[in-house]
């Protein structure tokens, strides 16, 4: 810990290479302490409404466990499944030695000022662990909820899918209806062990003046699968993230899907990077981005380091009402025998598609909405249908904002 403290202290002013630089101290409002609740249904209705939109089911029907953090406080943390552990990270760091084997193991604490701050001013976060061989039947849900206007929320999450386990997580990040301004720093480290399967679906439901700086990394061992879905449809001031995945074992697979909407005033800089480090590993990064006045940079980077790996990168962008879209796909093969491809397309909605639908009786607006919905409707193999339904719902809820 002392080593971490020292490194973090040294990096406290270190700017990130990407995204507008943020003065963290401008978000210094002190978050209130929220008491723990025994039952999610006792949360205020306003909170529940917002959480629902970010995919959180406060009745916990068909959920294997939940972690809810309001501002800096872990207010609820529970597992309904014997094969699943859900623990607030502060408690875990205090009581469980093994957690230290995972804390800051995939991300350097001195990456930038946000990682440094996340260590020095850690508020809370979750440790979720699926025990070896356990297939967790229902999704685990987490919610990081920012209520205090002008404050900074700092979380650190660790997710471990032990050997042969399978777990699906849906993570909603949301700002309270009245909160418009805030900073969220989120560190996430994912460990997918041998033959384990982890899907992580994150739905962002932030506000116009929110700044978000996630820093996440994943390691996938032999035969493991990491499926990462990200949906951000609501207005946001700035998000910059470049999650990195290391495929370290034979046959490991990573698949990233993101659906992004940039509203006027939004700066979105989202990427995905996968190192294919072992034979027969496969990676796929697919993004669909729509701007109706915002700035979007969609990055993708595949690095093939050994022969016999396969990767595909796909960035499709749609410009609806002005705005700026920059797709930056990168491939690097360090050796013969890597098979990697990319596909990038940025454009407006094709007029002939609109006219085709109009000739079937749709108005121009209906036709446009139908095409946009289709654009955002990507098939995600391996995702439970309930989670796909949550993604579809998030897309639909924001359709009004998009059009």
């Amino acid at each position: 810990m002392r080593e971490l403290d020292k490194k973090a202290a040294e990096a406290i002013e270190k700017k990130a290479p990407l995204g507008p630089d943020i003065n963290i101290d401008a978000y210094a409002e002190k978050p209130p302490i929220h008491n723990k609740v025994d039952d999610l249904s006792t949360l205020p209705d306003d909170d529940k409404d917002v959480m629902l939109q970010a995919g959180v089911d406060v009745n916990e029907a068909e959920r294997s466990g939940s972690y809810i953090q309001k501002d800096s406080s872990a207010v609820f943390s529970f597992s309904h499944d014997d094969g699943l552990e859900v623990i607030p990270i502060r408690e875990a760091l205090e009581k469980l030695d093994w957690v230290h084997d995972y804390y800051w193991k995939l991300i350097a604490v001195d990456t930038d000022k946000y990682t440094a701050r996340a260590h020095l001013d850690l508020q809370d976060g979750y440790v979720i662990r699926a025990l070896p061989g356990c297939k967790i039947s229902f999704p685990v849900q987490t919610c990081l909820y920012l209520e205090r206007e002008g404050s900074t929320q700092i979380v650190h999450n660790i997710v471990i899918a032990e050997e042969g386990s399978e777990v699906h997580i849906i993570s909603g990040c949301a700002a309270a209806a009245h909160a418009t301004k805030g900073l969220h720093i989120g560190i996430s480290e994912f460990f997918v062990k041998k033959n384990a399967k982890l899907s992580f679906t994150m739905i962002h439901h932030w506000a116009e003046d929110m700044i978000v700086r996630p820093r996440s990394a994943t390691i996938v061992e032999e035969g493991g699968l990491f499926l990462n879905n990200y949906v951000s449809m609501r207005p946001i001031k700035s998000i910059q993230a470049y999650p990195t995945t290391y495929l370290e074992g034979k046959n490991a697979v990573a698949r990233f899907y993101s659906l992004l909407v940039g509203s006027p005033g939004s700066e979105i800089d989202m990427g995905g990077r996968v190192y294919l480090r072992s034979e027969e590993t496969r990676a796929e990064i697919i993004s669909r981005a729509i701007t109706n006045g915002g700035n979007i940079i969609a990055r993708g980077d595949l690095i093939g380091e050994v022969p016999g790996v396969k990767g595909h990168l796909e960035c499709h962008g749609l410009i609806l009402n002005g705005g700026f879209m920059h797709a930056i796909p990168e491939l690097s093969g360090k050796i013969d025998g890597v098979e990697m491809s990319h596909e990038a397309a940025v454009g407006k909605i094709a007029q002939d598609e609109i006219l085709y639908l109009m000739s079937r009786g749709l108005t121009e607006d209906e036709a446009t909405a139908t095409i946009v919905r289709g654009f955002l409707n990507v098939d995600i193999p391996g995702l439970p249908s309930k989670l796909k339904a949550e993604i579809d719902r998030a897309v639909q809820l924001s359709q009004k904002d998009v059009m």
Partner: protein
Amino acid sequence: MLVIEDLKVRLGGKEILKHIDLVIEPGETHILFGPNGSGKTSLLMTIMGYPQYEVVCGKIFFKDKDITDMSINERAELGIGMSYQRPPSIQGLKTRQMVHLCGRNGVDVDSLASRMNFTDFLDRDINVGFSGGEIKRSELLQLMAQDPDLLLFDEPESGVDLENIALIGNTINQLLERDVKGTADKSKKEIMKLRTKMGLIITHTGFILDYVTADKGQVLFDGILACRSNPNAIFKQIKEEGYEECVRCAS
């Protein structure tokens, strides 16, 4: 009834239809012949209302309304529908949803699809990667759901294999209410008189004539409808002597 009067159409600065007069009575089906590039697709797209086809002069009436300046969807609502030669594909829009949209959510998509031998395609994105013949079936399936009164078919049978051609021919027949039989209280002739569906079918191969008994044939040549006559007679003449001769005989 569809009435086209003295229609002149420009596309990309080029005059592609010079002078078109055409009347399709309720219950009538016409076959449209013409060499490549003669403007057949353009005529159908103009009737459907595609804005890039600029009507320089003339008028189009449908069901006694002047539709010359109507938008595409208003025409669709009024009862005009089209099966395209080369429709666009739409990523992420499932064929199932598309057929639902065509039927304004009031149709049984699965039963329509099974009639069209298209069940396996319902969960694919519309037209994405469809083969030439599959596109034709997809288009007809959409028209079945839409059920318009004036049906414009742009080469519905080109690229279709021999087995599916019967399916396509018979479906077009049904859509155009051509498959009528006499009943106890009405003769076939009486029922035929009550038909209202109108059709305009483009064909090069003539295969469709084996299934659809059309009322009239038209030949589009050099931007005008140069000949109207019995469709089978026209087709025979074109086959034997070519378009130019066929048109010469008319004038």
